[in-house]
C-alpha cells in the first residue's frame, strides 16, 4: 500500500469519527422523529418500523405558526433592508460629497455595538412606542442590523466594480437613479444575496429579542417558539423531534442550494459581531 493511500485511509477514518460525532444528535433526531413512545424505548439506538409520520402532523400544528412568523419577519426585514442598504451603499461607493467619510464612519461604528448590549434601552423604546407583542417589533431590529452590515459590505463590493461599465451609460445621458437601478443593482446581485441570507440566519438565530418582546404564541419566531414548544412537549419524544426537524428545514434547504452564500453569511455574521 502506498504512503498516500495509507494517509487517506487513516485521515478518512478519523474524519468519519469526527463527522459522525458532530452529526449524531441530528441523526438521532431524524430517527426518533418517526417513532412512537414505545418504539423510542424499545429500539432506542436504531431506526424503528413502522414509521410514524403522524408525529409530524402533531408537530406541524404547533410549529407552523412559528415558521410562518419567521418567514414574514425575514421577508419584510429583507425587503426593508434592500430598500435602504443598496442605495446608501451606492452613494457611498460612487459619489464624492462633503461628510462622506464621517457619515460612513458613523454607520460602520454601529458594527461595534452588539445588539445584546442595547437590548434593554431598545426594549424600553419599543414599550414607549407601544409596539411590544407585535410582528413589527421583531422586524425593525433586523432591518437596522442588516442595513448597517449591508451598507458596509455592499459599499466595498460596489466600489470594486469598474467605472467603465457606467461610463457608456452616462455618455448616453443616464442619471444616477438609472445607473443604480439598471446597472448597479443587477451587478450587485451576489452581495445582495449574501445580505438576504444573513437576514434569514439572523431571524432563525435571534433568541432573546423575540423571547422578551412577544407573548402572543403565534408571533414567536423559531428560536423563542421552539424553546417554548420544547417545554410543552416534555417526554413526547416523537412529536418533539419532528418539531425540531420542521424548524430546521428552511435553513437546510438554503444550505443545500446556496451553501457558498450560506457560509459567507455565517462568517460575515460572526465577524460583524452579531
Amino acid at each position: 500500500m502506498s504512503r498516500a493511500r495509507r494517509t487517506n485511509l487513516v485521515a478518512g477514518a478519523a474524519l468519519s469519527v469526527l463527522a459522525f460525532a458532530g452529526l449524531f444528535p441530528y441523526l438521532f433526531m431524524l430517527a426518533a422523529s418517526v417513532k412512537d413512545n414505545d418504539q423510542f424505548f424499545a429500539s432506542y439506538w436504531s431506526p424503528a418500523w413502522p414509521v410514524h409520520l403522524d408525529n409530524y402532523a402533531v408537530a406541524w400544528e404547533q410549529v407552523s405558526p412559528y415558521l410562518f412568523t419567521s418567514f414574514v419577519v425575514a421577508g419584510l426585514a429583507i425587503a426593508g433592508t434592500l430598500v435602504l442598504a443598496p442605495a446608501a451603499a451606492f452613494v457611498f461607493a460612487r459619489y464624492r460629497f462633503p461628510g462622506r467619510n464621517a457619515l460612513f464612519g458613523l454607520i460602520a461604528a454601529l458594527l461595534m455595538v452588539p445588539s445584546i448590549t442595547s437590548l434593554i434601552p431598545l426594549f424600553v423604546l419599543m414599550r414607549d412606542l407601544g409596539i411590544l407583542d407585535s410582528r413589527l417589533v421583531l422586524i425593525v431590529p433586523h432591518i437596522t442590523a442588516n442595513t448597517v452590515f449591508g451598507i458596509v459590505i455592499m459599499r466595498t463590493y460596489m466600489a470594486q466594480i469598474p467605472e467603465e461599465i457606467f461610463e457608456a451609460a452616462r455618455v448616453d445621458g443616464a442619471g444616477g437613479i438609472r445607473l443604480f437601478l439598471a446597472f448597479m443593482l443587477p451587478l450587485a446581485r451576489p452581495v445582495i444575496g449574501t445580505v438576504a441570507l444573513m437576514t434569514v440566519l439572523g431571524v432563525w438565530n435571534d433568541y432573546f429579542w423575540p423571547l422578551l418582546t412577544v407573548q402572543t404564541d403565534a408571533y414567536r419566531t423559531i428560536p423563542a417558539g421552539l424553546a417554548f414548544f420544547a417545554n410543552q412537549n416534555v417526554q413526547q419524544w416523537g412529536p418533539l423531534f419532528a418539531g425540531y426537524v420542521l424548524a430546521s428545514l428552511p435553513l437546510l434547504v438554503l444550505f443545500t442550494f446556496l451553501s457558498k452564500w450560506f457560509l459567507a453569511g455565517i462568517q460575515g455574521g460572526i465577524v460583524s459581531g452579531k
Partner: protein
Amino acid sequence: MRGSSIVTSTKARRRIPWGVYLVLLPTFALLAAFAYYPALNGMVHSLFEWRPGFESPFVGLENYLTMLGDDLWWASFRNIGVIFVWAVTLMWVFPLLAAELVMSLSSERLRFVFRTLLILPLAFPAVVNVLLWQFMYDPRDGVINSLLRAVGLDGLAGNWIGDPDTALVALMTIGFPWVASLPFLVFLSALQNVPVEIYQAAEVDGAGRLRRFWSIDLPMMFRDVKLLFVLAVISVLQYGMQAHIMTKGGPDNATQVPVLRMLDAAFLDTSWGYAATLGTVLFALTLGVSLVALLLGRKAGA
C-alpha cells in the same frame, strides 16, 4: 449650488450632489431612532434609577457602585472566563485537527465530501442544536446516560445540567466536537492558502508531518488565530442563549453569565437603570477589546 461658491483654489470645485443626502436620509432616520438613540439612551440611563413610564430620579454612579458589590455579576465573569479558556483551547483543537486531516487527503472529491459532512451541523438553527443537547443530557432518557447504562457504568450516569458541579462543563460541551464552526472554516481556508511550493520545499528538506505543522502551518495561520481570539473574547461577553435554554443560569448560579445577569436585573428585579449599567459595561468591554485588537493589528502591520 452651481456657481454659488467662489472658486478660491486653482482647482475647480466639484459640484455637490445634493441628491445623495436625500438618499441617505431614510437610512439615517432609521438608525437614529433604533440604533443611536437606544445605545446612547442606555448609557445615559445607567446614571438613573430608570422607571420606564414614570419619573426616573438621577442617582449618579450609584448603579456602578452596586455593580462593584454584585457578587453574582463577578461570578458570571468567572464563568465566562472558564468558557473563554475552553473556547480557545479544546474548541480549537478539534477543528484544527479536522482541518489538517482534510488537507492531508489526496483526493479533491474526498476533501469536499468530508468538508461538507463536517460543517453540515451549521445548517441547523442554533436553538435546535442546544435543544438536542438538552435531550442528550436528559437524566432519564438522554443519550449520555443511556450509553453509560448500556455499557454497565450506571454509577457514572448523572444529572448533568442539574448538578452545579457539572452544569458549566455540560454547557460548554454543547456541539462536541465543535468542528462545524467558524474556527474550522478559518483553519481550513488558511491551510488551503499555503502555497504548495512551501510544502514541497519542506519535503525536500526532510521535514516530517509534525515539523511541518509547527514550522509552516501554525505561522501561516497566526494572523487568523489572532482574529479568532478577538472574536472569541467578544462572543463570550455576549454568551447567553445556551445558558438560558438549558439552565437559566442555575443550578445555584453555577452557569450565571453577564448577559443573563443583565436580563434578570431588568425583567425579574425591574431595576432598569441597573440593567442599563450592566449593558453599558458589557458594551464598553466589547469596544475596548475591539479597539485594543485594532491597535495591536495596526502596530503589527506597520
